[in-house]
């Protein structure tokens, strides 16, 4: 059955593609270690210490950043949808929320 989609956040589409998954908020190298494949990585900004989690993520969402910032450059090379500069993703989203990320339009939908 198709899930209901509600627009919850908007930012800059930084890597094209659409993907869905459960939110996992990360702020450090330690938290990135337990990341599950297929989850949606949410961070204030990613950095290379989170690269293992990034490579296993279905999509990436960041509070800050531009299309030339680290998450954007790296996610484009992996074909992982990415939205940056949402301003408040880490505040609005909660671990376990199911979301759909559109890396082209920069829109993020809460699924229920």
């Amino acid at each position, binding site marked *: 059955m198709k899930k209901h989609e509600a627009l919850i956040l908007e930012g800059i589409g930084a890597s094209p593609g659409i993907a869905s998954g459960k939110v996992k908020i990360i702020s450090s*190298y330690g938290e990135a270690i337990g990341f599950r494949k297929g989850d949606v990585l949410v961070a204030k*900004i990613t950095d290379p210490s989170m*690269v293992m989690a990034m490579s296993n993520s279905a999509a990436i969402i960041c509070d800050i950043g531009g299309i030339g910032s680290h998450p954007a450059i790296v996610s484009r090379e*992996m074909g992982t949808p990415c939205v*940056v500069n949402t301003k408040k993703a880490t505040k609005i989203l909660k671990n376990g929320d199911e979301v759909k990320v559109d890396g082209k339009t920069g829109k993020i939908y809460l699924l229920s």
Partner: protein
Amino acid sequence: MIQKNNWINEYAKKIFDITKTVDHRTFFPFDGFLFYPLFDNLWIEKFYQVVCELENKNISEADILKSLPTFSSLKFNFFEMLFMLNDANMDHEKSRKIINFFLQYIRHISVDEKWYNHDRIQKYINIEHKKELAIFKKEDAPIVGKIICGCAALVHGLYNDYCTDFGYDVFGPYDVSKKFGKGSELFIKYFPDLKAELIWPERKGKKIDDIVIYQVLKNIKSKSYYMGSHIDYKNNIIENTICARVDVNGRSVKNKKKLHEISEMLLDDAAFHYNMCKEFDFEKQKEIYLLQFCYQFKKLFELAGISWRPSKEMKSAIRGKKLIKGSNFGKFNYDQSKEYFGINYLKKVI
């Protein structure tokens, strides 16, 4: 020949475009433009000595070309040098010599005078005729993507946010439609120094020196932002891959298992290294940044017979000092950008 003001205006627009794509809050360990004023006069003098020595020793253009950093690194260093010359309000005669040195070699390497608009360089043109590109197929694209991600993340830690281009360049796109069909283009991702053991002695013994990745992509609609690594694709790269080739230490990787092993090794290395960098205190971060900055011109300085390492005066100029205040990097309007990044100064000097 492009008229002076024309190319400078186009260059100014290019710089304005790229700086708008980044967010200064994300720079690690800090915004370099707030750091350079602590030592820029000393760096300029050292660089000027190198240019003079190369001239005095009659070093050939070919030898200088072999000693320069990657094309993107050279271009980014030109961008930084203009900022520094302007900030230090350097004597115009010296500035002109340094600026002309950069322009001479940037133009020499690039395909045409519009070097500020693309990243095509002579060296790799016709590479498609020399290499067997179709080693890996579309279904392997995610692993190739992980390797690029691992390399890009690793060099980010090895060379910091401002010197990354020394460790990561992208060339292309080159039209390969005759061989791979309509809309196909070749991109070359080049990671020339993945050890950097002169900056990080603990990396001695690491197995991978360099990696070159050749990707044939279709209908990707790319846009380059001055430096090779700052490339944007309108369409998804994995879905639009035709084939790829990965060379590690000059040898082509032939099977998927090996490719997977390399990707895991790089991702692990990158995460570990960067985490270590994050734990440095501010004094250590400045010290390492200065070393990373100078390392980019190691070969050129050695050619001139001058030590590439930061001088005692440079080290002393940053020790115990705070960064300067007041950057609005990425938030400037066009006119403010031209002033801040030394483009108005460039017009006065040349």
